[in-house]
């Protein structure tokens, strides 16, 4: 029964006990009895011996006989307490006397408890177990108090309590350390208030008075000037204690130095809410501020103005001077914009502060939306004109040149204005409509401001959406090339194809007319053209492999592609990569764009020509070609504008123009091709006039790449089409059209212009 395990509760399975008794009989008996109950007993026959033992070893508990010859139990206990580590060692004083004097004496000398000697060992055992438990609890408590104190020190935290009527809170030593005071210092309310920055004192006093009056809990971060001469942020968290009646007894809580955390949070807020380049509030912050401004405006019934400011042609500056210069410019623009409004970096959110109900005015700011887009938020606008005044101030500020990267830059801006509530009830509506107004300014020539009008919405927005979708078209693989065959009706052969771009936007196929002009306007035409060149070369390879394609693919390029220094490399790379000859690619440039940018284009044309890439002049006849130039240009082909072909056989003028073009081409040794041929009649007239190479619906619509080979197989080779019959009979002309361009410059025309012109005239 009396196994040590029986006495549960004790974690130290076998508590170590020092038994001190001068009487051998008792020493023996007690020691046996306690060993039997699970104690590890060390015996000492006198007080002196006990102290010797304790000097080198520490038991969990001491049992000390009170009356002993020599040094008695009381003296022993008093001495024992002075030994290191023995201050809180549990000591049970055994006494044969149960008189009050001995008991008091025992407590006086530091005994933990007393016990009247008896043979009831289980009672002694119980008492010892109790002592051990309470001792352990006490040790744990001390440890936990120590670690709390340490933790509070580490957290720069301390506790305090205050009772109604006291002139100073009672701070723990740790709390005093937060205030950088000695552990025994007194900190009265007066001293505490004097640690606040002067301008805060009145407000904080009021806040404190209100808290006390309403018996409210208190949670505040308070800036305080501490003895180290720095302002620290002290976090105070206190809860009231009340009588059952609700009457306030006092407060208890903690104080903590949260300066570091506060600084970190400030940094985070800064990063989250401010643009790192210009230091202006960012998009997040703008949205938050605008929402609050709208809230106030709803309550107080005024208007809010949102001015969207977009720099004109910023991209050009960025591209030509570099990003560093672009950034420098944005910083200066931000600085100027800031000066145009009552810009507040920090929003006041304290209604008790001096701003009071007008706190929304601190929302006014210029924010950077991103890129070269800024927004000015005017939280209180009385009439439309107020916003216009600010917009004009902004335009005025931009007039002075900005020095960046060692250069003077002239920057202008387009400003779109939207007013709450008239132009939108939400931040998103206002932003969108200011954007529409801004876009209208851009469309009308930039460098101005416009107020949103409902009729502005629509066209501009659609266009913008189209533009942003087009931006992604390449990466999303939405572009395809379709191919329209060029045929020589005389030989009934396909002599090449023209590549035409299509945009698969969702389920619809957008025709080039709907996006090419936009692409040209926005500069997207460059990546589009690059893609087309690579894709055409790739397709050529596919056809070479599948049916021995050896003709050319014509790719349309805008003139601005030709002033790129790397166009030649681009083409070279594309054909080499796909292992097709250079002449596989033929470039078409419209007569208009060629003539417009003639000087910048010519060098490229020569270099292209040198590597074997031929040039065709598209839409020929519509522009104002300088014939003098035409003779010197390294071009290979003229493509008669479809407008003349359409009227062919209907108006004599059109056949006159066509005849003239054919003659011109012939005399310059250029090939000539007609496009937009839709009827047999047009074909026959062209043929008669001496142009046998044609392109148009009569022969084939532009087709997806994989339909070209079947078309060749099914219609051209078996000579199954209506257009083949009459043309092939004219054997005399077939030779000259097959000749190389270089030769044809010298060669005589196979069909003279004269009879053809006549034939044409006859036909009309």
């Amino acid at each position, binding site marked *: 029964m009396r196994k040590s395990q029986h006495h549960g509760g004790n974690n130290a399975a076998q508590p170590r006990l020092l038994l001190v008794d*001068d009487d051998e*009989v008792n020493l023996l008996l007690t020691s046996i009895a306690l060993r*039997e109950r699970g104690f590890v007993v060390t015996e000492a026959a006198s007080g002196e011996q006990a102290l010797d033992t304790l000097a080198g070893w520490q038991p969990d508990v001491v049992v000390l006989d009170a*009356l002993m010859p020599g040094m008695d139990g009381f003296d022993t206990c008093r001495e024992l307490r002075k030994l290191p580590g023995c201050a809180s060692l549990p000591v049970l004083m055994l006494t*044969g006397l149960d008189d009050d004097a001995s008991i008091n004496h025992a407590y006086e000398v530091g005994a933990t408890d007393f016990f009247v000697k008896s043979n009831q060992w289980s009672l002694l055992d119980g008492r010892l177990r109790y002592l051990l438990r309470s001792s352990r609890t006490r040790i744990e408590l001390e440890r936990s108090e120590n670690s709390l104190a340490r933790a509070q020190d580490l957290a720069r935290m301390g506790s305090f309590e205050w009772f109604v009527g006291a002139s100073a809170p009672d701070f723990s030593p740790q709390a005093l350390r937060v205030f950088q005071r000695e552990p025994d210092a007194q900190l009265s309310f007066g001293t505490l208030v004097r640690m606040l920055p002067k301008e805060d004192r009145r407000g904080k006093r009021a806040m404190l008075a209100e808290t006390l009056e309403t018996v409210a809990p208190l949670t505040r971060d308070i800036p305080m000037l501490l003895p180290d001469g720095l302002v620290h942020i002290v976090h105070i968290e206190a809860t009231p204690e009340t009588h059952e009646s609700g009457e306030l007894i006092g407060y208890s809580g903690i104080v903590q130095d949260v300066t570091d955390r506060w600084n970190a949070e400030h940094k985070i807020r800064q990063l989250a809410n401010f643009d790192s380049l210009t230091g202006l509030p960012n998009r997040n912050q703008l949205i938050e501020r605008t929402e609050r401004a709208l809230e106030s405006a709803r309550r107080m019934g005024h208007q809010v103005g949102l001015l969207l400011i977009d720099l004109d042609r910023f991209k050009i500056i960025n591209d030509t001077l570099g990003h560093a210069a672009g950034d420098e410019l944005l910083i200066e623009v931000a600085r100027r914009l800031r000066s145009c409004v009552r810009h507040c970096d920090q929003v006041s959110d304290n209604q008790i502060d001096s701003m009071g109900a007008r706190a929304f005015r601190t929302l006014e700011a210029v924010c950077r939306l991103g890129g070269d887009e800024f927004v000015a938020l005017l939280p209180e606008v009385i009439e439309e004109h107020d916003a216009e005044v600010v917009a004009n101030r902004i335009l005025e500020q931009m007039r002075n040149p900005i020095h960046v990267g060692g250069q003077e830059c002239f920057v202008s801006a387009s400003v779109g204005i939207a007013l709450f509530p008239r132009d939108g009830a939400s931040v998103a509506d206002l932003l969108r409509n200011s954007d529409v107004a801004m876009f209208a300014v851009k469309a009308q020539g930039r460098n101005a401001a416009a107020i949103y009008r409902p009729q502005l919405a629509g066209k501009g927005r659609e266009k913008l959406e189209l533009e942003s979708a087009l931006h992604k078209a390449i990466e999303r693989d939405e572009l395809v090339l379709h191919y329209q065959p060029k045929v020589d009706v005389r030989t009934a052969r396909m002599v090449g194809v023209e590549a035409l771009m299509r945009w698969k936007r969702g389920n619809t196929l957008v025709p080039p007319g709907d996006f090419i002009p936009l692409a040209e306007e926005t500069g997207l035409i460059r990546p589009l053209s690059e893609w087309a060149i690579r894709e055409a070369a790739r397709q050529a390879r596919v056809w070479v492999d599948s049916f021995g394609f050896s003709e050319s693919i014509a790719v349309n390029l805008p003139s601005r592609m030709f002033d790129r220094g790397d166009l030649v490399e681009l083409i070279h790379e594309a054909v080499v990569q796909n292992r097709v000859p250079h002449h596989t690619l033929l470039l078409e440039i419209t007569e208009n764009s060629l003539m417009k940018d003639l000087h910048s284009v010519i060098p490229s044309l020569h270099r292209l020509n040198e590597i074997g890439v031929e040039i065709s002049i598209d839409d020929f006849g519509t522009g104002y070609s300088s014939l003098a130039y035409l003779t010197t240009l390294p071009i290979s082909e003229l493509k008669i504008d479809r407008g003349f072909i359409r009227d062919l056989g209907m108006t004599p003028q059109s056949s006159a123009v066509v005849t003239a073009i054919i003659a011109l081409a012939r005399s310059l040794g250029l090939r000539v091709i007609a496009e937009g041929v839709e009827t047999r009649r047009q074909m026959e007239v062209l043929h008669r006039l001496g142009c046998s190479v044609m392109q148009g619906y009569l022969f084939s619509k532009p087709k997806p790449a994989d339909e070209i080979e079947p078309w060749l197989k099914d219609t051209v080779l078996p000579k199954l089409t209506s257009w083949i019959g009459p043309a092939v009979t004219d054997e005399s002309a077939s030779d000259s059209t097959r000749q190389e361009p270089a030769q044809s410059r010298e060669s005589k025309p196979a069909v003279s212009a004269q009879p053809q012109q006549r034939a044409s005239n006859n036909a009309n």
Partner: protein
Amino acid sequence: MSATQNCGLDDEALRRVRGLDPAGRGDQLLRRLLCVFEKSIDRMLIQLEQARAAADAKAVHMVAHTLKSSSAAVGALALSRQCALVEQLTRESRLDEAADDVQKMIHEAEAAREAARRLVAQLETVADIA
């Protein structure tokens, strides 16, 4: 066990001592304790003689106190009671008044020692037989 079997020592007290060793070595423990008790009395009687000769009431008191509890432990109840009486009388240093009772305590101590000796011998016999 009868009183004679325990040589006049208190049954209850001896039973309690024996009960301290549950492994069945109760007699062994008792024998050891009684031997310690005998020697303790030897020593106490010498101390007592010295104290009496020196008329040291405090020393007499201490002897009575010690003997009181050890004799109670082995069941020498008459000695324990006499010790208690002497302890009481000598607390206020009234050694003269206690002279008779001290003498009586010496007799009781000698008797208790004799009882302890006899019991030890008896237990050894039992142990030998066993």
